[in-house]
């Protein structure tokens, strides 16, 4: 298969997203040549339907209203540009992801967001950059999760450390760290069992895994990625908050952006918790994980059809 450029793949993946939001936007701006309350109400509707959330939407609309007033904007078209700027300002990353190796990724999230698949894609991404990757099969809870990760390891051609189902996840991670050190691994990616962020005991287990990484592998660059499902609604904010409290999440990976879901929730997550978005999953293939680029994301979101 021909390797496509980043933007074309991102755009493809986001095609649905873009279509949804921009179609409505276009319709909106066509019928409103003037700036009035109705226009703002409908803008609000578009954002809420994209899962941006009531709080963030209200804040965004307020900001746009303010600027419209101050800058004496009279055309509806110009309002769109202002909204785009405001969303971009919200999403812009204050800090770049500066990886240094050896590195260790801890991948966490609730059930069914696509952690294991994302780990497969991450492993593939770094293997093809010439890094030596090791996976730790830390989901010892869900039936057949270990096998699923193993299939990915074979596909990608990387190494894997596994125990059996029901084993202590922290022990798997401990062993994987020792293996990573002795085998000269560049990147260790630790899978964890999906857990609802409201389950205290499971969250404590995660904290323990996190502690083990800090203690046993202090020399490695550590990233904790929270995987969020783009179809998730306002609950994603609650998920991000709780995981951040327990294991200090350093970045978000947004999956399943190729559905009809609009993924607007990351705007709320970024705005309310300040956690940067690092990667997005835009398809089911191995190559369909992309570094998140705020500008491209907003551009693609608002691009004219």
């Amino acid at each position: 298969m021909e390797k496509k450029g980043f933007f074309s793949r991102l755009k493809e993946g986001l095609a649905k997203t873009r279509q949804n939001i921009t179609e409505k936007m276009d319709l909106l701006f066509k019928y409103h040549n003037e700036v009035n309350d109705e226009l703002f109400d409908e803008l609000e509707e578009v954002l809420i339907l994209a899962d941006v959330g009531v709080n963030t939407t209200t804040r965004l609309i307020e900001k746009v209203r303010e600027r419209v007033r101050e800058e004496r904007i009279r055309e509806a078209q110009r309002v769109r540009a202002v909204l785009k700027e405001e969303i971009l300002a919200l999403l812009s990353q204050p800090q770049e992801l500066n990886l240094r190796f050896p590195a260790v990724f801890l991948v966490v999230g609730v059930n069914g967001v696509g952690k294991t698949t994302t780990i497969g894609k991450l492993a593939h991404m770094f293997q093809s950059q010439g890094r030596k990757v090791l996976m730790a099969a830390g989901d010892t809870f869900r039936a057949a999760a270990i096998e699923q990760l193993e299939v990915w390891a074979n596909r990608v051609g990387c190494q894997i450390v596994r125990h059996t189902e029901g084993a202590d996840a922290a022990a798997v991670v401990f062993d994987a760290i020792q293996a990573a050190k002795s085998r000269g691994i560049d990147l260790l990616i630790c899978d964890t069992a999906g857990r609802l962020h409201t389950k205290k005991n499971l969250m404590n287990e995660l904290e323990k895994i996190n502690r083990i990484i800090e203690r046993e592998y202090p020399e490695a660059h550590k990233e904790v990625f929270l995987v969020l499902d783009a179809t998730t609604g306002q609950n994603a904010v609650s998920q991000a908050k709780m995981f951040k409290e327990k294991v200090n999440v350093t970045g978000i990976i947004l999956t399943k952006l190729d559905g009809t879901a609009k993924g607007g929730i990351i705007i709320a997550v970024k705005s309310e918790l300040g956690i940067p978005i690092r990667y997005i999953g835009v398809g089911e293939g191995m190559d369909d994980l992309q570094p998140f680029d705020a500008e491209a994301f907003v551009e693609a979101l608002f691009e004219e059809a």
Partner: protein
Amino acid sequence: MAFEGLTGKLQAALKKLTGKGKLSEKDVKEAMRDVRLALLEADVNFVVVKDLINRITQRAVGQEIMESLTPGQQVIKIVNEELTALMGGTQSKINMAPNPPTVIMMVGLQGSGKTTTSAKLAGYLKKQGKSPLLVACDIYRPAAIKQLQVVGEKVGVPVFERGQVDPVEIAREAVEFAKKQQRDVVIIDTAGRLHINEELMEELSRIKAQVKPHEILLVVDAMTGQDAVNVAKSFDERLGLDGVILTKLDGDTRGGAALSIKAVTGKPIKFVGMGEKLDDLEPFHPNRMASRILGMGDILTLIEKAQASIDEKKAQELEKKLREQQFTLEDFLDQLQQLKKIGSINDIVSMLPGVDVQKLSASGALNEKELIKAEAIIQSMTPEERRNPSIINASRKRRIAMGSGTTIQDVNRLLKSFEQFRHMMKQMSNIEKAMKRGRFKFPFL
């Protein structure tokens, strides 16, 4: 528990109305604005919210309210009725085929919990005396078949699989197999998909055409946002759904998807998944859920749970003892242990009317540890002491406290609350005699 967040917000919005003797249009509109925000924050679909608010407002500012003596209560009644109507009125059950096997096809997006839910449903039906067969038609996701085999084994239901061949063929063979093996329910676990994936949608249609399922159930993650209705709509358009199973309702999601799906597709929610254990699948009762959302409690579910977990004979014995005032600390201990079977204190209290669990938990009133302490204290008493607590003197108290790892104050507190409880029961049994009501009593409720 899901819905709590929504409950709190709605209660706050409606509270402003309850005290008022007269309601102006402005009062109602203001309350409705809060209700609207609460629903949107809970991920109820935007269009559904708009519709709902319009209907409630119309009814609330109309005749219905103005002539009522308690207008605030009347508004809450309207909201409750509208919410119930939105979720589909009465409970919907699985359609069983007149000639077995009944074929149930499970469909849904990736990660919604199809495989786990298939096993849960199989376990649920098995408990009801059916003999289900699970069918592994997800041939794409790595290790999906293995996963179904593992969970199938856990609930004691056989799994039919043919490896990674055409799923349509697997489904066909499975139904044949079920007929031969006298299996009366066939549950087909299909591959997860993003519903824009035409190829896989096509495959589902072919499976449907081949096995002609009696039920097609869509599995939806309760945390889904505004997109939930699009998902349900597109599956319904392609396959014609019979019902929905909502999963992961045990998180802190406000579960707005539950409210929207029925409203938009007209398909009822039949079951809800409430946890990671394989028996955490409950039939969905829309009217009860509406009451729960409004904080009006869910006594019916509580009673059912109690009936399922409590030993009938013991309950009758207990009732007799209560009536004859022979209730001892031994019975008290017994009650404690039975109570634990029903669920955590939080679960139980969340079903009671007018209780905001989050607030209660925060205040420390629902301390599971207190119950464990009480158990330990009673277990450190001699049988004689349990039957006749009045013989417990200072030295015995000291021994009990040491034995249970508590303090003398703890022992005193327990004895005192037991006395109070006995007193309360005496009064209650008098009332009960007069009213001849149900037979379950819980010391803590």
